[in-house]
């Protein structure tokens, strides 16, 4: 750094000492704080309405297990949306990865960890492959991500149907189901939940504290500025889409473990659920803003609503209505907050 120092001729600036906002102020201003409070409020409301059945270890376990696969998808989606992109293909890539993973495990045969690891590697590789296709078309061919991933949604889901002939693959190694699928650590916490949270935490740390995360925000905030700052924008975008694809592959593997079948027809709205969770969590569709903690809250709000409605005896269909309203409300509040903050 060259240093240009002449402070003496501008004493009037001394009075205006710079400072960072205190912690509580940043806490209040942070969008994930408010979403977290909404989640806490929902839990409190259901707890008061049905204290016996809602406030229960088994129930908490159910909610977390239901949310686990979606949390893995939302983790990758958070990165993509922070770059001002979108990935509509995650649900289809999940299905495709599950199908080829199941095929590979059946092809190898046997019921041991070797086969399970083979299945995991195949699922991750399949997801990464679709992610690279998305990333290449977005970053190099400059096709809008909405169109690219809408296209690969159709192609990957279609490919999964062609491979299976439309019939779910029901033959999954038993060991996979009893361990990762339904097993629990210390007989308490489901492995699915542990894996999903580990993924969210690791990538949350990467997003918040590393150069990879910083570049993700910078590209979403101002792609041209990032380019001019010497950041390899195209390469970074390809990495981000590849990450989202790989995590969709992992989600496909986890889904396979949990349901012991490929559930081809069961993931049509996974993409929209993941996007809704990320956006409810305070991540801006315009890019540059968002946190992993917010996405975790955003995943659990619909999960808690569904579960709570069932327990208090409301038709579960109301969950869709409630989530839709929460989504719109969250984005509206976020815009109000941003408008007041950015008014200059």
């Amino acid at each position, binding site marked *: 750094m060259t240093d240009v120092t002449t402070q003496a001729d501008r004493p009037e600036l001394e009075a205006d000492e710079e400072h960072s906002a205190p912690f509580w102020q940043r806490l209040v201003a942070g969008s994930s704080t408010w979403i977290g409070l909404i989640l806490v409020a929902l839990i409190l409301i259901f707890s008061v309405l049905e204290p016996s059945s809602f406030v229960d270890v088994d129930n908490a376990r159910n909610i977390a297990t239901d949310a686990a696969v979606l949390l893995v998808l939302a983790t990758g989606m958070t990165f993509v949306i922070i770059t001002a992109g979108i990935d509509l293909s995650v649900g289809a890539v999940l299905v495709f990865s599950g199908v080829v993973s199941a095929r590979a495990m059946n092809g190898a045969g046997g019921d041991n960890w070797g086969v399970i690891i083979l299945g995991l590697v195949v699922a991750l590789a399949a997801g990464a492959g679709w992610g690279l296709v998305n990333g290449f078309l977005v970053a190099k061919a400059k096709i809008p991500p909405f169109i690219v991933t809408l296209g690969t949604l159709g192609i990957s889901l279609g490919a999964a149907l062609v491979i299976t002939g439309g019939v779910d693959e029901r033959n999954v190694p038993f060991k996979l189901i009893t361990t990762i699928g339904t097993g629990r650590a210390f007989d308490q916490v489901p492995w699915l939940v542990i894996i999903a949270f580990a993924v969210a935490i690791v990538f949350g740390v990467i997003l918040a504290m590393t150069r990879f995360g*910083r570049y993700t925000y*910078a590209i979403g905030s101002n792609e041209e500025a990032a*380019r001019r700052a*010497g950041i390899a924008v195209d390469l970074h975008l390809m990495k981000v889409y590849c990450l989202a694809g790989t995590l969709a592959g992992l989600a496909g593997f986890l889904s396979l473990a949990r349901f012991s079948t490929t559930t081809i027809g069961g993931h049509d709205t996974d993409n929209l659920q993941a996007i809704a969770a990320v956006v409810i969590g305070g991540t801006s569709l315009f890019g*540059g803003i968002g946190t992993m903690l917010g996405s975790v809250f955003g995943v659990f709000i619909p999960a808690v609503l569904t579960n709570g409605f069932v327990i208090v005896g409301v038709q579960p269909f109301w969950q869709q209505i409630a989530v839709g309203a929460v989504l719109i409300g969250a984005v509206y509040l976020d815009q109000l907050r941003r408008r007041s903050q*950015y008014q200059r």
Partner: protein
Amino acid sequence: MPEPLLEARGIVKSFGRVRALRGANFTVFPNEVVALVGDNGAGKSTLVKTLAGVHQPDEGQILFDGEPVEIHSPLDARRLGIETVYQDLALAAELDAGANMFLGREIMRPGLLGHLGFIDKQAMRTRSREAFRSLGVTLQDTSAPVATMSGGQRQGIAVSRAVTWASKVVFMDEPTAALGVVQTRNVLDLIGRVRGQGLSVVLISHNMPEVFEVADRIEVLRLGERVARFRRGEVSMEGVVGAMTGAIRQDEIERPEADPPDQDAGLDAPRR
């Protein structure tokens, strides 16, 4: 007569059917403030972006310290010690001032964490704060997103970033366009101080009084070509405006001293 530090020769750049630069020449000498002036659409910003590595020239040559160089990317320009304050500032609005200051050259955490890609936000904030203070840029909160700051503060961050990292040349594309009186004063003072550090400044501006105040030399671009060059005190504002608009050619402009008729040979050296 000193050798030129940076020289563009016959730069041609087209965007589709628009020929933004038609064989433009441009010269920067060591340790001078040179103003690049021209009417709207004369090609000033395109020329600056070409020299900053944002655009690739279709034709022409760039010399740095007398050696031909190719500037394929902003990184190449950076390695030569060239930094740019773009007209749009090129700040990431959602990131804080420190993050923008160090965008693309983050300070990593020491040890293993740094190797794993962890960045040292605190160090970047502290060093940015020092840079802003020494340059007279006041920010209430260096951890707030740049989007929450005033136009003057944003300009201050962009200028500080360029000045902090440049070791040879700073391009400033209309650095005072969005500024009030006091902030404009700050930027103009800063330009003088940057030259005092031994750097060269290329100032792009429409504001003639400003140009006449700080520039050692003036180069005039018109329709993608250099049409005139002047040293400080050799020309009136009317003369420069005349050259910008094409109303006057350089050899018609009245000069206070007798110069050789070969303008390009006689006007290269900055006056000390």
